[in-house]
């Protein structure tokens, strides 16, 4: 352990000459919503929606859908192929509508992993997530989760890869009890529903795994065929947080998922304790 090339390189950023680069965030108590996303439109940020597809022509999507992909299982292997702007269910379009409503200049990338093929959904979901991370997008909105034990290590690796590549994963907490992934991984922003009808109101819960709560009860949403509906589910709470993350990253490009989480906690609607 005497030669320099055996020394770990991990200490380099902490060298006195290099440490200035680390000054990125104001003190936590100085961070407010105005600093975090005041004036932001979401320009320059692309968000992946891994779901049932998005109806590009739906008024609520406002023409912000720039790419549509279908993950199809061909010969047992998931293939990511170009897709038309369709949504067989309405769920992906609903997520898109929520995000566009809060982030008018966001760019949406749809990955359709639900559709005619009922087999291999977990594998298709993993393939879509991998593609989104490498594309790369800045944020991925995940309504789905997998209970499959065999996919646990796959999603674990993808969640880590997203973290180290600074792609923020926002996942709906599962509505029913039981472990499901990736919503329970520590680097993921996991969101459950609260009933207060305000898209901008979200709460931080210091007891993981579900760390954030956003509006998810009786949410008016876009639905299939240019329609609308009103829905109650955790998977419509998640896009509200995805939208806020997109606004933050548009104003402050390059933030890490850890920093984003800290900012969200700092500006959440929780009661504040005195300094």
């Amino acid at each position, binding site marked *: 352990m005497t030669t320099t090339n055996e020394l770990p390189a991990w200490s380099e950023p902490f060298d006195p000459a290099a440490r200035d680069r680390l000054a990125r965030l104001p003190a936590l108590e100085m961070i407010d919503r105005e600093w975090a996303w005041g004036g932001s439109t979401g320009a320059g940020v692309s968000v992946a929606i891994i779901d049932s597809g998005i109806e590009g022509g739906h008024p609520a999507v406002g023409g912000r859908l720039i790419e549509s992909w279908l993950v199809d299982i061909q010969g047992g292997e998931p293939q990511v192929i170009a897709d038309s702007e369709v949504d067989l269910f*309405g769920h992906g379009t609903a997520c898109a509508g929520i995000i566009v409503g809060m982030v008018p200049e966001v760019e949406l990338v749809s990955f359709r992993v639900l559709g005619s093929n*009922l087999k291999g959904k977990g594998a298709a979901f993993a393939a879509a997530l991998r593609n989104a991370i490498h594309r790369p997008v800045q944020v991925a909105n995940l309504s789905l989760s997998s*209970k499959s034990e065999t996919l646990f290590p796959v999603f674990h690796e993808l969640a880590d890869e997203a973290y180290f590549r600074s792609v923020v994963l926002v996942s709906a907490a599962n509505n029913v009890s039981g472990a499901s992934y990736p919503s329970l991984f520590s680097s993921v922003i996991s969101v459950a529903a609260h009933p207060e009808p305000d898209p901008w109101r979200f709460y931080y819960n210091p007891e993981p795994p579900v760390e954030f709560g956003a509006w998810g009860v009786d949410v008016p949403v876009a639905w299939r065929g240019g329609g609308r509906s009103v*829905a*109650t589910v955790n998977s419509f709470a998640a896009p509200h947080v995805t939208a806020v993350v997109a606004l933050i990253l548009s104003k402050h490009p390059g933030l890490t998922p850890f920093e984003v989480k800290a900012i969200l906690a700092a500006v959440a609607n929780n009661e504040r304790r005195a300094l």
Partner: protein
Amino acid sequence: MAPRAAIDPVLRAALLTVREVALRGSVASRFMPLSEERLLQSIVDATVRLFEAEAASIALLEGVPPRLEFRVAAGSKGAGAVGMSVAPTQGIAGYVFSTGESLALTDVAADPRFDRAAAERTGYVPRSIASMPLVNDDKTVGVLQVLDKRTTPSFTMRDLELLAVFAAQAAAAIAATRVQRELPTLLATSLRQLEPGMSNDRVRAIVVAATEGLDVDEGTPFWALVDQVSRLRDLGESELELVGGILEAVAAHRAHRKGARGR
């Protein structure tokens, strides 16, 4: 029953054990028929009552190509759904089935592509729906749906959590009854686990030999006897004693007659 000639003598003992297991499974099921339909019916009945809903129903994935088939329903507006089926890749039930995630929607009819025609065939078009997947292990086998609470226009997160409890119960009931229905598959799986190198033909031959004649729906004298014996469960202590006494007397009589003839 003798194993078939095609079966290796080494496996003979194993086969007899397997047949014993299969026989016990079948006898148990004949004794106490776990009617899937009846269990599921009781679950939708309870769901309707608890939620004060207009209807509740359970659809299971059945057939080739697979469709979500409405097997049971309850509530004043529920009856029309039974026997209907929908594609598992469309609509609210399809979404819930495909994702394994629950969903509650209000103003359902406001969705222009809501399957109004299908809803009208049931004689009822709902305003709100809560739909919950029925999950066994990793596999979604169907959906539990509740239509229109009478007390409130929409479903809450608490409703969804409560509904999840009923869904878990329904999934467990389905798993229990399918153990019987899928006995051959179960046996084949266990054989493959015991002897991974065994060929498919051989597994099939053993399963056929083990389960042959064990169809509980058959009206053979063996099952007629099982049925009669199963009626003993309903008897009281003194009646059981009486039946036991009669059987003993019949046996003694036969033994006596046999002895008399032999003399």
